[in-house]
């Protein structure tokens, strides 16, 4: 056990917070993290879940993103963009990391209303994480290619080619 780390954690104080008694956001930042959380959490969890296929870890990723925002509040100009970017990148990297470490089984997908949707979802699930992220951003969040490029911090051309490969694969599987 890292004694220093543990002492630091345990010495962090024992704030007693009750539901509904949250104090005002950190005065050092003008970002209203609470409002951002309220307005964006569900959408971000959906986005992360679509990439991770794991709503539990997705929730954690979103939490981590907000934690990062809180830490970096003074340096973030576009909080929503920051959150999207962080969630997507954390989700993709988590998928990659999972391939290395032991991973827990992903639960079977809930049944869809139509067999065609079941098949399409299965095809989406089989896409590599980054391709899936691009597909979800494009067709679930209706993001433009340029916006996706900004989120993924990559050139628009890369987004186009990634999307092209993803759609080609989906077309092949669903035809």
């Amino acid at each position: 056990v890292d004694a220093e780390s543990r002492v630091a954690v345990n010495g962090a104080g024992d704030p007693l917070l009750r539901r509904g008694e949250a104090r005002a956001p950190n005065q050092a930042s003008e970002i209203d993290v609470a409002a951002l959380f309220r307005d964006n959490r569900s959408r971000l969890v959906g986005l992360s879940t679509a990439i991770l296929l794991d709503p539990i870890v997705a929730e954690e990723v979103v939490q981590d993103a907000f934690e990062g925002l809180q830490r970096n509040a003074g340096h973030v100009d576009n909080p929503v963009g920051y959150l999207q970017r962080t969630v997507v990148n954390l989700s993709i990297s988590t998928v990659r990391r999972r391939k290395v470490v032991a991973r827990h089984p992903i639960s079977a997908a809930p049944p869809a209303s139509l067999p065609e949707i079941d098949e399409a979802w299965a095809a989406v699930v089989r896409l590599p994480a980054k391709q899936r992220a691009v597909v979800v951003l494009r067709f679930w969040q209706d993001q433009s290619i340029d916006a996706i490029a900004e989120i993924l911090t990559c050139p628009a051309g890369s987004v186009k080619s990634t999307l092209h490969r993803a759609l080609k694969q989906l077309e092949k599987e669903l035809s």
Partner: protein
Amino acid sequence: MIDEAIRPELEQLLRATLDEMIPKVVAARPPNIVTDIADLSSASVGPARSRHSVRRLVVAMSVAAAVVVGLVGVVNRDADQRNGASGSTAEPEWYRLLHPALPEHFERAALTLATDTQMWFVAMDERDGKALEIQVGLDNEFSSDKPTSTDSTGTWYAKPQGLTVVKPDGLQVTVTCDIGAKGRDFPGPPNYCDMASTGPFTESDIRVVATRVASTFDKSVFSARLGTPMPVTNNPAHIATLIAAAVPDQQHHVGSTDWGPGDEIFDFSIDGVRPDTSVRLVEGVYPPPTTTEPARYGLYDDAAAFWVVTPGGAAVRISTTNTLPESLDRLDQLAFEILGSVAPLSTTVFTTTTFVSADTIAVDDGSVDQPTTYYPTDSPMPMWPDVATSGETPIGHIGYGMALCSGGSWTTFTSLASATGIEQSYQGTLCAFSTFPHPIPETVASCSSMSPGTNYARCQERYDTTFDPESGQPDGTGPPSVQQSVAVQLLPPTPEVVPQVFGDRVSALSGPSGPAYIDDAVSVVFHAGDSPDQTCFVIRLTDLGSSGCVDSTLLKTGLAYGAYEAKDGPIEVVGIVPDDVASVEIVGRVISVKNNVWHYTGQPGDDLSFTVRSADGTLSASVG
């Protein structure tokens, strides 16, 4: 642009797929991962609903019109879902018989009473809180009444909210539909089922159900012993305490009505002089849902009602004629508190050790951590960003959330950042127990963590000795006593690197429905998981419990266990093992395995390390 080259049909299908499936996958998370009580009343995920609905409709219509075979497939699959295909518990005999009679939307049902002459069932419509009461009996209470009609099924009698038919063989079937609302007793409650906004359930519908029941049930059901009601495990006083805590300003004390061993009803008043609200607790619901869905209020003329059902088969219906928004919010939360106390669905060691990666297993050095933070039990532990915005510790905040820790349910850790800047992210929950037999104001829950990197946390119930006896609230100014801190020491996690020396067969999984194991303190019910390599369980103790699944990799180690402690002990250790584990040695005692379950009651401070062994002793594995 490349993406514009997509075929319109594929794009439409893709959009509809994402619109439908992403919220479903998000919603499929276990009930213990509810992160905020506010989530329970909000199912919205993703972009605007209306646009999604249109998309789904368009695709559904085009598919239905173009592919007749596909439509047949849809119908069949819906039928499968009604048959409980989504649930994984073995279908009880009583349900097999009753199911054909159940109308659409009333597929979940429970047996609440079974005697030599009576079988009572309740079927629930989770869309709006309606309940069908189906009672089959041999006592013809209507022999002197005037029948309303006679047909090939039998002689029919009118009954408030329903009908009774007495078959020629004397079997009496009564079916009623109601939402259980109180406060409109004079001149009699209206027929809420008739006015259901989601679809009225009329007398003719009731007649259909009664006719079907009459056609499938006969006198032999009473000797066939088709099942026994699942007892409501909490004592009524405890539920009454929860209600009193949730509605502190109530004018009318909670009264309990026992409708049978599997059914408990509590009536009380939120702010009137007469009971206006009713809480009904039912256990043994089949088929159980795979997840706990948010409460969906059915709004009626002057009343509201909803059902909430857990994967453990417990259900709560709350109905009220006090429909003020603030009242409904409180009742919504109360339902989940009650369900949490019935079967706290905290994820246990069973499911969470699999999150610990082989190269970052936290080393338990046996030392005792001081709890890191304390929260009162009468409110959910705050989620981000509440904990992050305390302002007291700019970076040293304890950035985890623990929703409804007080109820022992829906516990989730998210992440933790230390003052050193080292981020510690939890990959899951390792809260083996955290619940309170009673909502004691001075009780606090605490969690501690050790080691950086992938981490685990342990939860414990504490007493805050600094609580103010006048206000009855903890003031949170001080840590728990030394003695209480010592009790934080728990069992070590089961590391993934333990060899998988055993098989993965669990014979008890295919045994008869009902508990595979039961003793004075513990009962364990098995059911199959979503995948073949899962063994799922519901563990109940007097005031604690959990549900979850063990996957085969953990099962093969022989070291799947959960540990539970209410207050300061004793600690109940419950293990689930494959067939080839015959005995367990713990604290110097050898315990036999019964139906793939072992149970040991330890005391705080005990070294609860244990070793499991095969019958011939050639295979063994240890924790600790």
